[in-house]
């Protein structure tokens, strides 16, 4: 072999890998560093090295928290994400249980139907959905988002949970049936506790997906107080021609943190269920 194997390994693996990591993380670094830069440094590349902060400041974050409705947006987003996550978990756990455990004629088709619902992109639905939301008197209310988000969360969670239910042995349920347990008791005492890892990963996915959602929140919410973080930053913080980059980046950073924290707590579930969902 012409090359020393370690040099070869560095060239073929570590070097490209470092480039990937650098490029994938750079926007976050840039976001973070902008959030803490005083305005004097922010737009002056001649006297200050743009890649570093000489005198970090909390001014942008203070401005965001005390001079804007940012805390309200965070609260609304949290409410919507938690509400739609619970609604979706409830609906999809029962659906997955019925499809996988209570097998009936046509259950594969019901499963396929729910799966196909995932392939309908929100970009096609938001216009007619807006009229439906208005008809229900839910326009401009966070409730609209809590009810609409399950349309993309339920298909997703149902398929994740079907996989989990599949991995729980039938015998456990049969034994309980023989012992005289009712179906609901079996679901509550045996199947659900065993499916907890699945429920957790479905919950994380739902939470992050609803935190990220943009187009419905943009189309169905009008008043500033009911906006979710991604929409509010874009429509309320971007004013005029002079962009307050410090505040904008601080808002993006703070808005990303809950998802990132949540994700880092459960990262093993997240990665394994993602890879598992594709593998199975």
């Amino acid at each position, binding site marked *: 072999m012409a090359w020393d194997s370690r040099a070869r390994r560095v060239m073929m*693996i570590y070097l490209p*890998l470092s480039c*990937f990591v650098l490029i*994938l993380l750079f*926007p*976050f670094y840039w*976001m973070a560093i902008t959030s803490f830069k005083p305005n004097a440094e922010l737009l002056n590349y001649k006297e200050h090295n*743009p890649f570093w902060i000489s005198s970090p400041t909390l001014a942008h974050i203070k401005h965001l928290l005390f001079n804007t409705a940012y805390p309200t947006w965070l609260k609304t987003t949290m409410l919507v994400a938690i509400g739609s996550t619970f609604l979706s978990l409830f*609906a*999809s756990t*029962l*659906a997955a249980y*019925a*499809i996988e455990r*209570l097998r*009936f004629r046509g259950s594969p088709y*019901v499963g396929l139907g*729910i799966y196909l619902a995932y392939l*309908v*992109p*929100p*970009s*096609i*639905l*938001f*216009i*007619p*959905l*807006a*009229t*439906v939301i208005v008809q229900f008197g839910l326009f401009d209310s966070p409730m609209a988002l809590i*009810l609409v988000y399950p*349309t993309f969360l*339920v*298909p*997703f969670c*149902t398929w994740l949970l079907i*996989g989990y239910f599949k991995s729980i042995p039938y015998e456990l349920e049969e034994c309980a049936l023989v012992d005289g347990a*009712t179906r*609901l008791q079996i679901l509550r005492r045996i199947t659900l506790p065993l499916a907890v890892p699945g429920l957790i990963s479905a919950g994380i996915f739902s939470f992050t997906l609803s935190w*990220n959602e*943009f*187009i419905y929140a943009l*189309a169905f919410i009008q008043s500033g107080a009911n906006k979710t973080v*991604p929409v509010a*930053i*874009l429509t309320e913080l971007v004013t005029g021609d002079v962009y307050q*980059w410090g505040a904008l980046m601080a808002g*993006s*950073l703070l*808005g990303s943190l809950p998802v*990132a924290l949540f*994700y*880092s707590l459960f*990262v093993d579930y997240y*990665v394994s269920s993602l*890879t598992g969902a*594709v*593998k*199975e």
Partner: protein
Amino acid sequence: MSVTTLPSQRVTHRQPGWIVRLFDYKPFLIVMCLAPAIGLLTVFLTYPLGLGVWLAFTDTTIGQRGIFIGLENFQYLWTDPLWWGAVFYSVFYTAIATFGKFALGFWLALLLNNHFPLKSLLRAIVLLPWIVPTVLSALAFWWIYDPQFSIISYLLVDVLHIRTTNIDFLGTPWPARFSLIAANIWRGIPFVAISLLAGLQTISPSLYEAAMLDGASAWQRFRYITFPMMMPILAIVMTFSIIFTFTDFQLVYAITRGGPVNSTHLLATLAFQRGIAGGELGEGAAIAVSMIPFLVFATLFSYFGLARRKWQQGEAND
């Protein structure tokens, strides 16, 4: 104590309340279990989908019920250069971004499939662009693409001295188009990489050992083992990627809102501009509906084009 409580327990077991007995009746239980999911999907997905197709054939505006006007909306779109522009850019955006995401994502997956320390930490870090809300990372890109204070321009002009003037990333059509595609690829790489990594890990090492014994080169092992074995999973991941890239909205809305001079409108942003911002619900719905044929075609193409082998995989999720 236990002697006296036992019989009464047995009695309650034998005669549960009628509600509990109703839930033990399997057809009823099945209906009750499926009701929340199917109900939500019917009211907020199936019905709006049908309504959307209907709206596309009417002249509905915000606050006013429309009447059926047949194909008029579509005839109008056919003569509308903006719609053609959006069709062109949607196809272009999807093609280039998908190619980029898969080329780079596959490469990253192959790199991550090697053994090295801190592997799982690295996998977690690499997924970040996919976790963080698209609009928020799009804002970071907006700032990175700033005409005056772009850090890329700074690097090229002041550090590397490759150029003498700043790049106007978002102010001129072609640079703006490619800037958006770059941001989309950046966001898409992690998901492609992690999904393909899962696929790579299912390939049996004995195949590579056998090929090595036969004297196959690294490229031959990739070409004749890795690539064909990855086909089914590539087909699924690509189908999803194409659907969600073609119907992308947030990235373009956050960074350019379709500008400059409407050069970066995707069908979804054009539908939003006409339907919600402009109030022409019928026309907006027609633009949204016009995405369907492209989606069906792209899905069939990627799905049947790539999954020639009978695929054992039953499901995949974005």
